[in-house]
C-alpha cells in the first residue's frame, strides 16, 4: 500500500509546482502523508487549501504555525509507520510572513514602522508581484533548517508560468533594488548621470501619477527605500533558497491534470524549467481516469439485449474519454526529460476528507504505462 513512487529516503525537499486548479495542494498533502507512512518526519506547507483538505490536515483558517497531524489511521494498518514518523502541516499566510520578516530584519523600529504603515505595503504586500511566492521561499528556508525534519513538502501558489515561483526572489529583489524607483525622488540636477531610458521611465512613472491622480509614486519610493539595509539579507536568503531548489536532494514535481489544455500548459512549464536549468523529477497527472473494464464480459453475460446495449454505450463513451486522455499523455511523454518520471494519480470518487484519503491518493500514485 505504501507509495514507491517517490524515494523519500533520497529527498530533503519535494516542491510541487503547477497552475491553479489541478489539485497541487492535494498532491502535496498526499505526498506528505506517503512520506510519513514511509517512516519519515515530514513537514508540509500548503497554500490556499480547500476547506475539506484543511479539515483533513487538522488546520483551521487561522492557523499559521505548524500543526501536528494525527497518524493514528496509518499506525492502525499492519506494517504502519515507525516511531520516527511525524507529519506537521502549516498554511502559508504571505502577509503574516512578510510582516514577521520585516519585524525581524528591519534595522530600526522607525524603519519597521515606516514599512508596516506604508500605503503600498498595506494594500499590496499580498498582491505585489511575487510576494506570495517569495514568502513561500522564506518559509521554506525556515522549514528546511529544522534538524528534526527529514522531508519538507512544499505546495506553491498557483502559477500561470513555470518560473513564477522559482523566479520570485529575483523579481522582488529587482523591485526593491530598482533604479527607476530611486530615481523618482532624485532632484532634477542629479539626473544627468542617468541613462535616457531611466529618464523616460521616470517621466512615465510621473505621468502615471498625473493621469491617475493617485500620488502613488512617493509611496512606492518610500516603500522601496524602507527596505534599504534589509536588501542584503533578502538577497542572501533568496540565494540560499535558490541553491536549495537546485540541490541534488530536492525533487521538483510538476502537477497537472489530463485535460488537453492543462497538458499543453504542463509542456510549456516543462520547457521553461529546462531552459532555466532546473531538473524536473516527476510529473504527477492528477485525476487520471482508472482502467476500463473488458468489453468481452458484456457479450458473455446473461443480460437483456437492451441492457447490453447500454453497457456497451457506457463503455464506448468512457473509452473515448480515455483515448483523449491517452493522447494528451502521449503528447506529454514525448517531451519528458529522461530522468523524470510520469506518475498518474487516479481520480478518487470523492474529495479527500481525511488523512486516510490522502494516504490512498499517495499509495495509488503509479508510473504511467509506457
Amino acid at each position: 500500500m505504501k507509495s514507491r513512487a517517490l524515494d523519500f529516503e533520497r529527498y530533503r525537499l519535494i516542491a510541487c509546482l503547477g497552475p491553479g486548479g489541478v489539485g497541487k495542494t492535494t498532491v502535496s498533502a498526499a505526498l506528505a502523508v506517503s512520506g510519513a507512512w514511509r517512516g519519515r518526519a515530514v513537514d508540509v506547507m500548503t497554500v490556499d487549501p480547500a476547506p475539506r483538505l484543511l479539515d483533513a490536515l487538522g488546520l483551521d483558517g487561522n492557523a499559521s504555525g505548524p500543526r501536528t497531524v494525527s497518524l493514528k489511521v496509518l499506525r492502525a494498518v499492519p506494517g504502519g509507520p515507525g516511531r520516527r514518523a511525524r507529519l506537521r502541516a502549516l498554511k502559508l499566510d504571505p502577509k503574516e510572513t512578510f510582516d514577521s520578516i520585516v519585524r525581524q530584519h528591519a534595522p530600526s523600529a522607525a524603519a519597521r514602522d515606516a514599512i508596516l504603515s506604508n500605503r503600498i505595503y498595506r494594500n499590496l504586500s499580498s498582491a505585489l508581484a511575487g510576494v506570495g511566492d517569495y514568502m513561500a521561499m522564506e518559509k521554506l528556508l525556515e522549514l528546511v533548517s529544522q534538524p528534526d525534519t527529514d522531508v519538507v513538502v512544499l505546495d506553491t501558489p498557483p502559477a500561470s508560468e513555470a518560473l513564477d515561483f522559482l523566479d520570485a526572489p529575483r523579481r522582488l529583489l529587482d523591485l526593491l533594488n530598482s533604479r527607476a524607483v530611486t530615481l523618482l525622488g532624485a532632484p532634477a540636477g542629479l539626473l544627468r548621470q542617468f541613462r535616457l531610458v531611466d529618464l523616460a521611465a521616470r517621466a512615465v512613472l510621473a505621468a502615471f501619477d498625473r493621469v491617475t491622480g493617485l500620488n502613488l509614486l512617493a509611496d512606492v519610493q518610500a516603500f522601496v527605500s524602507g527596505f534599504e539595509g534589509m536588501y542584503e539579507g533578502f538577497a542572501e536568503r533568496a540565494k540560499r533558497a535558490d541553491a536549495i531548489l537546485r540541490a541534488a536532494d530536492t525533487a521538483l514535481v510538476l502537477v497537472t491534470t489530463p485535460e488537453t489544455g492543462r497538458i499543453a500548459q504542463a509542456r510549456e512549464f516543462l520547457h521553461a524549467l529546462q531552459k532555466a536549468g532546473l531538473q524536473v523529477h516527476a510529473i504527477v497527472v492528477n485525476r487520471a481516469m482508472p482502467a476500463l473494464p473488458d468489453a468481452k464480459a458484456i457479450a458473455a453475460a446473461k443480460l437483456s439485449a437492451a441492457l447490453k446495449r447500454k453497457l456497451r454505450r457506457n463503455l464506448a463513451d468512457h473509452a473515448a474519454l480515455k483515448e483523449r486522455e491517452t493522447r494528451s499523455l502521449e503528447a506529454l511523454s514525448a517531451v519528458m526529460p529522461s530522468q523524470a518520471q510520469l506518475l498518474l494519480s487516479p481520480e478518487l470518487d470523492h474529495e479527500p476528507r481525511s488523512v486516510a484519503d490522502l494516504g490512498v491518493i499517495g499509495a495509488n500514485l503509479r508510473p504511467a504505462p509506457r
Partner: protein
Amino acid sequence: MHLPRVLFVTGKGGTGKSTVAAALAVALSHRRFTVLADLSTHLGAAALLGAALGEDQTELLSESLEVVALSQRAELNSFIKRLVPLAAISERMLRSRTFGYVTAALPGLEAFLLLERLRMMAGEAALHDRYLVIDAPATGTALELLAVANGVKGVAPVGTLRRLADDVQEFLTNPHRFAVVITVTPEDLSVRETLATAETLKSARRIEVAGTILNRSTNALFEARDLEQLGALEEHRALARKRLEERAAAIAARRELERAGLVTFELPMLYRAAMGRREISALARVLATGLVAL
C-alpha cells in the same frame, strides 16, 4: 429574455471556461457578429477554435466571428506608448525589467487598463450591434479584476483615472450592457464556489449574473434497477453506477443553483476522443437552443 451585448465568462479552474466561452461565441455568431476576447494566458478559447494568436492580435474565423487576444501586459504597453510617443524610448523602457516590476507595484493599474479596454470594446459592440464574449480568468482573479474600478474610486478621489473608473463601474453594473456567465461542473466544490461568486457579484458588486452553465452534465443512460442485474459484472456495474451518480450530481447541482435564483443551462458531457472545433460546434448548437433561457 434580453441578453446584454457583453458576456463575461468565468468559473472555477477546470470547469471549462474556455470551452464554454468558445461555444457561446460560436452560438451567438449565428445571430449577429460576435467578438471573442480571450484573456487567458494560454489563449484557451482561441486555440480551441483553431486560431493561433499572439498578444493583442485579431483573427477573423468566419464572416461573423472574430477572436482577439487581450492581456493586461499588452494594455499597459499601449498605454505607455500613448504616454511616450517616441517609439525608440518607449520600447526600450518596456523591455527594461525594472520598469516591469515598478508598474506591477501600482495597484491594479494593468487590470484597470484591461477593463477600460473591454469597456471601449463594449462601446464598439453596442455601436455596431455586435456581441462581445470574454473568456475571463478563473473566479478569484476575475472577481479581483471586476473590483478594480471600485478600488480605484477609493484611492483616486479626483482626476482622469477617477472619471474613467466611474465610467467602467457604470458599464459593469448596467445589466443591459454587461453580465457574467459562470461555468460550473456537477461537483460539490464547484457548485459551492459558484453560489458564493454569484452572491458576491449580485449583492456586493451589483453586477448582473446572466446565469450559470452546468458543464459536463451527463445523461443517466441506466436506470437504478439495471444495477441490480449486474451482480456478476462488477467492473461494468461500477462504471454504470458512476454514470448514474454523475447524473444525480448534475440534477442536484441544478436544483441547488436554481434554488439560489440562478438561471442554469446544462451543457452535455461530450464523450469524444478529441476536443476541437467540431466539438465546440456541437456544444454551440446545444447552447443556441438554450440562449433564450439565459
